[in-house]
């Protein structure tokens, strides 16, 4: 078990900087998920922790010791790769036991430890098979076993579930979570899948364009996104964003065609803002209800447990998630209502959060 301290870490390829000074503290035994779109530098950051990429600037310390110049093997990390990276010419047992063999562990002890790991991962009957003869989920488990057997200080996961089908992904997700509870080793998990991120993380790190946008518990990130990017990236369907201007009465939205009477609490009149509202926080009401925004239904997506209703708000796309058993007809007029406390305000220029209103969810202590 180990803590990881990342200080001002930068990464450049030739002259192009892809990670622009990341600071992050990962506590011992914590499960941290780095979430971001592809190309945001999340994998690069993970690979720098692993020692597979050189650190251009800044320091990474594991358990207080700076590891910048250490070889991967000297850092005490184990990694699960996206494509599993199993050795195709070795059997499952050889794959799992390779690190022990390299470390010179005697054969008898090796067999014992391979057996123990195989038992946890239910791979005992597959030990003699080659990776070719395994299914995706089994390969995934072998890759996990290969990481586990070393009893590493830190587990690194580089999008390990993205090659699995949806059902298996959910299953492996909970297995990884269970495994973490059992081993309680510090884990860093990189993904672009926000559901995966929300369900796995003790703490979520949202990255974009080589920068950390927000660090917090999944609930914090969801309820108080620190930037416009985080707001639209976390949550599905994405948070609705409407451009607006602060007026004396409240807000003027969509170039003045809609007005919203909200308290402007501190924001200077005339400032440009982006107003965010989660699709889950919107209620559909009869058209013409006082205070509601009028809109036209575009499309209804049936999810079984609920529906996503896509509406048109003077040309701006807007979505509503509802679990009520209403089936609005495409083309029909409806009204949209929401609580003032559910609105998120972001600066139109910088995209950062403007804290006008109190968060609707109290912040859990870390």
């Amino acid at each position, binding site marked *: 078990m180990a803590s990881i301290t990342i200080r001002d870490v930068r990464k450049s390829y030739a002259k192009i900087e892809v990670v622009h000074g990341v600071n992050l503290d990962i506590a011992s035994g914590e499960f941290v998920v780095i979430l971001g779109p592809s190309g945001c530098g999340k994998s690069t950051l993970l690979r720098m922790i692993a020692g597979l990429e050189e650190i251009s600037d800044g320091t990474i310390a594991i358990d207080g010791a700076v590891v910048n110049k250490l070889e991967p093997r000297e850092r005490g990390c184990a990694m699960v790769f996206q494509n599993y990276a199993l*050795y*195709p010419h070795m059997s499952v047992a050889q794959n799992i036991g390779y690190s022990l063999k390299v470390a010179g562990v005697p054969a008898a002890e090796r067999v014992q430890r391979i057996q123990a790991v195989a038992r946890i991962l239910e791979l005992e009957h597959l030990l003699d098979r080659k990776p070719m003869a395994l299914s995706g989920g089994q390969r995934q488990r072998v890759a996990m076993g290969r990481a586990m057997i070393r009893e590493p200080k830190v587990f690194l996961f580089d999008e390990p579930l993205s090659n699995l089908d949806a059902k298996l992904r959910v299953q492996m997700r909970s297995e990884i979570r269970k495994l973490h509870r059992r081993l309680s080793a510090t884990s860093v998990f990189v993904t672009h899948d926000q559901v995966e991120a929300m369900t796995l993380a003790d703490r979520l790190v949202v990255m974009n364009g080589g920068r950390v946008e927000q660090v917090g518990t999944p609930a914090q990130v969801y309820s108080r996104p620190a930037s416009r990017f985080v707001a639209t990236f976390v949550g599905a369907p994405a948070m609705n964003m409407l451009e607006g201007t602060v007026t004396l009465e409240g807000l003027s939205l969509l170039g003045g065609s809609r007005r919203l009477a909200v308290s402007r609490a501190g924001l200077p009149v005339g400032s440009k803002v982006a107003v965010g509202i989660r699709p889950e926080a919107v209620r559909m009401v009869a058209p013409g209800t006082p205070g509601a925004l009028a809109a036209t239904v575009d499309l209804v997506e049936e999810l079984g447990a609920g529906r996503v209703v896509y509406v048109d708000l003077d040309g701006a796309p807007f979505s509503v998630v509802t679990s009520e058993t209403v089936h609005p007809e495409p083309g029909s007029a409806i009204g949209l209502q929401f609580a003032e406390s559910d609105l998120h305000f972001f600066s139109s220029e910088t995209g950062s959060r403007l804290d006008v209103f109190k968060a609707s969810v109290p912040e859990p202590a870390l």
Partner: protein
Amino acid sequence: MEKRVTFGKWTIGILFAVPQLILIFTFFYWPAGQAVYWSLTLQQPWGGGNIWVGLDNFRSILANADYWNSITASLVFAGISTGLAMLIALVLATLTDRQLAGSRLYRVVLIWPYGIAAPALAMAFRFILAPEAGFMAAVNKVWPGFWDPGLNGADAMASVIIAFSWKYVGYNFIFFLAALQAIPRSLIEAAAMDGSGVIRRFWDIQFPLITPTIFFLLVINITESFQDSFGIVDIMTAGGPANATNLMVYKIYSDGFKGLDYSGAAAQSIILMLLIIVLTIFQFRFIERRVHYR
């Protein structure tokens, strides 16, 4: 289900195959058949009929010590030059695969030797390795008499081996590099995470995964070393000194076209063909077992 495009009439398929079949027949089966026929007869040196002699040609060749010397020389040449060409190529390819500076350049430059005709490169090496004026003259100045391929059979053999290997290093390099680059980078990284160093990674991961290529090159190199060596030997040593570099393929030429013993030369080429066939079967039977196909 796999869908196959097939020809409606089998005759169309045959028509497409005919040009290739004509080529193979004209340039392989016909001459090979002729060689077999000649080897069983005694040809007049200046034409005009032949006499059926059965296996007499083979008997007289195999009773000749010069011929056994030629087989030995060929096997030594094949073994050392194949080993050298493959080993050097593998080392170069491994270094290039690790993306050392200039690796893009090597990739292009190293294939060139293979494009040079054997006699031309032999001429170049004849100058380079000339004991009185070439590169080795400097060595001879320090240790007089150290290098003299004109008198010393071992030196002569070394010369032709060096020239031949030089040509095939480039060829092997391209195949090795392609094989190494086909190994997913994440496998190497996974091995690095597992604590394996550069050398260990090579033996545990890269080497087993390129065994199909190694096997392929082994077969090609050995086969070529029996056949493609002719031009090099002819220019550099002409089989000398004292038959030290009189490889089988060169002896066929000198016996046939200089000694005008067509029948004996034909019998030798049949033996050479059988030897290559046997060696290839042997490689497929015993070495291929150790190959990991993915």
